[in-house]
């Protein structure tokens, strides 16, 4: 523990889950997420865990649904088309308040799309995806190290709030090899079994536990929804995460908003632009839900121009506009759909164009 190791992203994500205390993985192969399942198939038996290859993503997600209801840390990982198949279980888990962790290594869509890095599942992750009124915790780290560092938080918050925690990273994070350091190793036996867990009556005082998303009485279902939204409000208040990069001055020429790999690339663009004298900074949401809207609005006071760079066709920018909620700002969008990754040069050119007044 503590030393840096050179690992493929997907394998490091798997190791991070194991060191977070996860001993149950249910998965189904899909590019570019398969190495995570492969790593868990190799690693979990070494630590007394269980890897099950499910018959589909529908089944894999329903297996973590069962294991989470039984009170244990469980995880699955997939990529966009597979995550679409998991929306059923995701909605049910929200209704039944079952915690689990899902990693989406997003690839280009819609449909089969391609297998290149993308962020086009933003709406699916943040705005629902499945049926009903619900929210998921959605984390979008920008580097492998950050993904590894926050992995325990996903499991802990999933159980703290009894809800799904999802990590969305583009396929690049999973496929790239990087040096990474693991700063923790949590003993699963030290994680208490919650009193609501399905574990047999004898484990919780002889009174039965029932886990269900069904409530036939509309008044009771309404009350349940209000209770869920009180919980989501608490999550919103406590769990917003973001990074403000080069946004210290009181006036900024252009504030760029981006997350994930796009944000990582933009940091290079910001450094290059700064070297040329442009006052440019980056606002990077780390949680996509809860979205750091208050903070974004505050930083937006410093600038006239807000440039959203996303590996999708104008999804993130909707939340950017909603957060800032000021029609007098100038909003600019650089969309990169289909598995195309931005380059620093393109972003630099766009910023310069905006400041020359040529861009809308």
């Amino acid at each position, binding site marked *: 523990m503590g030393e840096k190791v050179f690992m493929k992203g997907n394998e490091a994500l798997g190791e991070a889950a194991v060191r977070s205390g996860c001993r149950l993985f249910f998965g189904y192969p899909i590019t570019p997420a398969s190495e995570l399942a492969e790593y868990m198939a190799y690693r979990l038996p070494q630590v007394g865990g269980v890897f099950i290859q499910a018959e589909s993503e529908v089944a894999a997600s329903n297996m973590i649904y069962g294991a989470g209801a039984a*009170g244990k840390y469980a995880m699955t990982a997939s990529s966009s088309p597979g995550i679409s198949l998991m929306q059923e279980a995701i909605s049910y888990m929200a209704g039944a308040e079952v915690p689990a962790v899902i990693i989406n290594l997003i690839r280009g869509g819609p449909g089969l799309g391609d297998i290149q890095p993308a962020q086009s599942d933003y709406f699916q992750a943040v705005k629902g995806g499945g049926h009903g009124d619900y929210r998921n915790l959605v984390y979008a780290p920008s580097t492998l190290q950050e993904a590894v560092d926050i992995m325990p938080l996903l499991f802990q918050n999933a159980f703290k709030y009894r809800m799904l925690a999802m990590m969305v990273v583009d396929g690049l994070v999973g496929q790239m090899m990087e040096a990474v350091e693991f700063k923790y190793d949590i003993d699963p036996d030290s994680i208490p079994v919650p009193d609501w867990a399905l574990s047999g009556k004898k484990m919780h005082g002889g009174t039965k536990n029932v886990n269900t998303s069904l409530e036939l009485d509309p008044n009771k279902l309404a009350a349940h929804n209000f209770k869920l939204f009180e919980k989501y409000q608490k999550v919103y208040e406590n769990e917003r995460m973001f990074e403000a990069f080069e946004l210290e001055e009181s006036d900024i020429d252009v504030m760029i908003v981006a997350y994930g790999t796009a944000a990582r690339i933009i940091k290079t663009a910001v450094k290059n632009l700064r070297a040329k004298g442009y006052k440019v900074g980056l606002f990077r949401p780390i949680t996509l839900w809860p979205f750091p809207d208050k903070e974004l609005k505050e930083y937006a006071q410093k600038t006239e121009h807000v440039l959203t760079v996303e590996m999708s066709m104008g999804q993130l920018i909707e939340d950017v506009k909603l957060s800032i909620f000021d029609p007098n700002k100038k909003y600019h969008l650089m969309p990169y759909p289909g598995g195309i990754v931005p380059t620093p040069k393109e972003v630099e050119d766009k910023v310069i164009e905006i400041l020359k007044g040529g861009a809308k």
Partner: protein
Amino acid sequence: MGNLQVVYEVPKIYTGPNHYCPGCFHGIIHRVIAEILQEEGWDDISIGIAPVGCAVLAYDYIDIDWFEAPHGRACANATGIKWAWPDRLVFTYQGDGDAASIGFAETSYAAIRGVNITTIMVNNAVYGMTGGQMAPTTLVGMKTTTSPYGRDPKYAGYPLKMAEHIAQFEGTALSVRVSAFDPQHVLDMKKWIRKAFQYQMEGKGYTFIEVVSTCPTNWRMDPVKAAEFVKNEMIKVYPLGVYKDVGDEKKEG
């Protein structure tokens, strides 16, 4: 008259009254499961998986831990629960539409994988809760709301025989078709459900009990006629019997 003895009691863990229609076998099957769990002392360590369909509220009727599954996914949910707690008794309680149509893959893969759980599939040849639509198990010629002229194999194919299907897999320890249309068959059903649970506790693999049942409401029959229909028509297509029983040959502990 001081010699009154208790010869039968409804099991304490059976908590009714239930909502089932007169002549439906769900109530009998629930009670038999409750009897077995109580007699064997397994109610403390059991986790039931309730289905979508008429038995969706099964968790109100047997006093054990319950999970309410999405339609068809019970065996996948049960797989997750079983691996979370391998020494608990985990069973799914499903209808034929649930286990054999939308959940065909999940049910089959529980058997293929030899997951150490039990499925009790109640086959009444229709989707009961949604109003009597055609199921994979609907008899040829049988009229339902989605086969108003009778099930026509040209469009709908033929009845699916789950006990035979599940029996083919090496991961299956027990696959039996029973019924409950008279007391003798209820006792027989109880024997086989008990055996399925025993095999599970011994770690023998997947166990599957198909119960040929009724739907008096959607069949438009009174309870007696419905039971007679099971006896005279249903079990011609769904013969009762043991399709696989590994017995003592496969002990894994």
